């Protein structure tokens, strides 16, 4: 299959709706299994941290929420670029669907970080590079949601949001490397893909479970939102009406 025909297939809302429908039960089941299983594992079975005590157990939701919030932003920026360059409507729908999910995950990252900070650092909040750049990520998501609602015209809204999403993507590497570039209260990354991780394997395994669970959860909810968007936009087409009201007409 050539690249352009694959592209057309993926860009077709109808094909995407039917394909994603088959993935939904798998994504839902697997994400909930990994999230619930990983959290129980991390809360009840992993030994306490020798320095932080039990407050470290917040890691099993804080790191997945933060990592997926950043990954979601990159996905949104890429979808925005695809929409701008190739005018793919599906990419605009994905971009619109990601914003509220990403905002929710960033909110969780900030909140669980603050609650973790209190017993560990003795403060809920500091204006350091990592925390401030994640706060900016939260405002970027809110900005995209607001921008979407500010436009009457759907295409104009998608264009403006795509530009904001792409420009805001510069914040992602800043978040990622903030703990190394600036002196920060936030601990540096414990998981390394290139060298030795500084987190003990017994603590790492449940984190891998909740991290992959959160990525799958994000994909699941994203598909749910995109499918609603497809139904809304294509409500006057025959295939959507057949899909919802059955073939018997």
């Amino acid at each position, binding site marked *: 299959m050539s690249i352009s025909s694959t592209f057309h297939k993926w860009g077709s809302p109808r094909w995407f709706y039917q394909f994603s429908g088959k993935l939904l039960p798998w994504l839902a089941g697997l994400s909930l299994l990994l999230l619930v299983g990983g*959290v129980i594992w991390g*809360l*009840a*079975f*992993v*030994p*306490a941290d020798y320095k932080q*005590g*039990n*407050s470290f*157990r*917040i890691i099993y*939701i*804080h790191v997945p*929420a933060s990592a997926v919030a950043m990954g979601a932003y990159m996905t949104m920026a890429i979808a925005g670029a695809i929409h701008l360059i190739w005018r793919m409507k599906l990419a605009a729908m994905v971009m619109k669907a990601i914003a*509220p*999910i990403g905002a*929710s995950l960033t*909110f*969780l990252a900030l*909140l*669980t970080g603050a*609650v*973790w900070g*209190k*017993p560990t650092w003795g403060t809920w909040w500091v204006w350091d590079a990592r925390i401030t750049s994640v706060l900016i990520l939260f405002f970027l998501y809110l900005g995209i949601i607001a921008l979407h609602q500010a436009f009457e015209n759907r295409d104009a809204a998608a264009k403006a949001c795509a530009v904001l999403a792409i420009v805001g993507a510069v914040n992602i590497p800043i978040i990622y490397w903030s703990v190394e570039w600036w002196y920060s209260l936030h601990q540096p990354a414990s998981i390394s893909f290139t060298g030795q991780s500084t987190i003990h394997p017994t603590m790492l395994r449940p984190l891998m479970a909740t991290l992959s669970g959160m990525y799958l*959860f994000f994909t699941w*909810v994203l598909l*749910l*939102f995109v*499918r*609603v968007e497809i*139904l*809304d936009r294509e*409500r*006057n087409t025959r295939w*959507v*009406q057949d899909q*919802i*009201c059955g073939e018997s*007409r």
Partner: protein
Amino acid sequence: MYFDTVGDFLSMGGHGPYVWFCYGVSALVLSILVGVARSRRKQAEQQIRAIVRRKKASSSSTTQH
């Protein structure tokens, strides 16, 4: 199980309130996301059904006349 008693598990050496609050709010926020997606889906389905009903009604009235 790392903890000896259920009480230990809940209190987590004094960190219990922080830890349980985080997981409680996270469960709530993630469920709200799924709930919002489901309710929007229902709304969209209702609107599509209404369109189909109107279409049927108008086509049957034009064939009768």
